[in-house]
């Protein structure tokens, strides 16, 4: 169905989207790149000039930087592992014949609709707070000292909060995929002598590969930029214990008011995101084809 005229029309119709996205991506990126080589501090606006790679060097020499890189990867990786694993288990459970499946789905999907600042502040205050939180109450009822979540386990706390937000997404997509598995395939496997575990390992999980791929791809896109949850809860602390790369950049821009450094950090973050994106698209693109 491709004639010359329809191909021309197609080009014209894609053009606005491509142009807008290009501008949306390139203009701020170019400006960031420019600032990253400039001395630009809001505290001393008179002193400007080219500084070469100074801003970048500062980042690479800062001990916080490597910590932040590590934290970013731990956050993305941790949330992925938790949501995919739990998502598979919960999907397997919900897919069983149970009473009230409709209402149950509504309950499970709810956290996905909660906006990040609300999710973070509710979990931080109502649950993780060492004096008034529900978790503290449980600890004390069992005769233990309350756990100082944000103080002692900042990264784990953030990962927990973000996982709660994303678990419904993973569960629902995996459940959808599970429901499309033909029961004949499972029955054939059973006739072939496969036990429950073998059926999971050789039939169900391979069938879900595509869904798992989608979950990883989409979540990574959103998780790399996680910011609000940290801002609301730990503010990157204590010290820099829960500072991720986006948060470190934010601190340079807002707290230190050093636009040049923040820009250099931004460029590093973009490069990091592109590396992750490249591997994701390559590795996962194969799974998504066909």
């Amino acid at each position, binding site marked *: *169905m*491709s*004639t*010359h*005229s329809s191909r021309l029309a197609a080009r014209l119709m894609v053009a606005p989207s491509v142009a807008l996205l290009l501008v949306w991506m390139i203009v701020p990126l170019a400006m960031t790149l420019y600032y990253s080589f400039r001395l630009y501090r809001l505290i001393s606006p008179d002193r400007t000039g080219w500084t070469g790679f100074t801003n970048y060097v500062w980042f690479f020499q800062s001990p916080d930087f490597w910590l932040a890189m590590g934290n970013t990867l731990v956050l993305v990786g941790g949330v992925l592992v938790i949501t995919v694993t739990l998502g598979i288990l919960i999907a397997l459970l919900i897919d069983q014949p149970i009473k009230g499946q409709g209402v149950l789905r509504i309950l499970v999907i709810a956290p996905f609709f909660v906006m990040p600042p609300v999710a973070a502040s509710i979990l931080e205050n109502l649950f993780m707070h060492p004096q008034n939180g529900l978790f503290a109450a449980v600890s004390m009822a069992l005769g233990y000292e309350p756990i100082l979540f944000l103080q002692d386990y900042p990264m784990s706390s953030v990962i927990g909060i973000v996982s709660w937000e994303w678990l419904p997404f993973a569960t629902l997509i995996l459940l959808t995929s599970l429901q499309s598995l033909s029961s004949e395939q499972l029955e054939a496997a059973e006739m072939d002598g496969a036990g429950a575990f073998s059926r999971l390992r050789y039939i169900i999980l391979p069938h879900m590969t595509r869904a798992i791929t989608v979950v990883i791809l989409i979540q990574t896109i959103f998780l790399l930029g996680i910011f609000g949850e940290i801002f609301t809860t730990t503010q990157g602390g204590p010290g820099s214990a829960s500072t991720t790369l986006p948060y470190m950049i934010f601190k340079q821009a807002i707290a230190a008011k050093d636009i040049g450094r923040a820009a250099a950090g931004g460029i590093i973050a973009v490069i990091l995101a592109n590396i992750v994106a490249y591997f994701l698209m390559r590795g996962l693109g194969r799974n998504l084809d066909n």
Partner: protein
Amino acid sequence: MGKIELTKVRKSFGEVDVIPGIDLIIEDGEFVVFVGPSGCGKSTLLRLIAGLEDTTSGTIEIDGKDATNLPPAKRGLAMVFQSYALYPHMTVRKNIAFPLKMAGMDQAEQDKRVERAAKVLNLSNYLDRRPGQLSGGQRQRVAIGRAIVREPAAFLFDEPLSNLDAALRVGMRQEISELHQSLKTTMIYVTHDQVEAMTMADKIVVLNAGRIEQVGAPLELYNFPRNLFVAGFIGSPRMNFIEGAEAAKHNAQTIGIRPEHIAVGDGPWEGVVGLSEHLGSDSFLKVAVDGIGTLTVRAPGEVHAHHGDRIRLAPAGKIHRFDANGLAL
């Protein structure tokens, strides 16, 4: 009116020549069938005529006017698609009326034409249903209805019966033939099924690898295939081909003999029955003939030959002779 003339029509997708160059004249009122194995370019050729694909070079004339660069709607042709391509969100009535609505015809005339088409196609009781509520055969009729209301110069059919079950297919085949007899409009019909081609066509165009192998009336192709490809493609079961010493006796590289042209009984050939299929009216035997190879034989229904029996065979009809290039002698 619907005379279609293709001159040196070529179509390539990138580097690949799907159709290297075709000349063909389709006369007004003819029922022409394009037949060939899958991938032979028959559907592409139909889509070139429809205007759904651009020709790479060459010209397409419809009723003497150059239509090569006209958009599909301006060519005055109607098409019935393999999947019927009905609009699922419209009722049958709206489906059939859609081309009229697009042409800006007034409502009264639209209604009149739709009613008339529905009557011809036995769809009058289904006009307010949606395609999803119809059976396969009924959907097929709606697709045809949508084509006939436009009163096109020619109808194009792209394997229209391939989604129907066997019994329905025979019925629809006859309906389309009858439609052609009553409308007398040019029809171009694409299929891979040589039975459809033989039963429906005035003229068959046998295509292979984007080239026309032979054009002719059904019996002409059956009786005088121009080459090995046509000989093998037309006729069911397939023609037997024999090479070697037996062919040399007839001064040919290859000889061909149709299964229905071999008689069981006394004869020069002797062999063992491998497989025998008894259909009642006919029996198809696969016989491993000494010194020749396996031959398919179409014997009368009551022949009693079974696996392992040794029988004799005699040629009882035309023997086709082909040279080293596969051309008929």
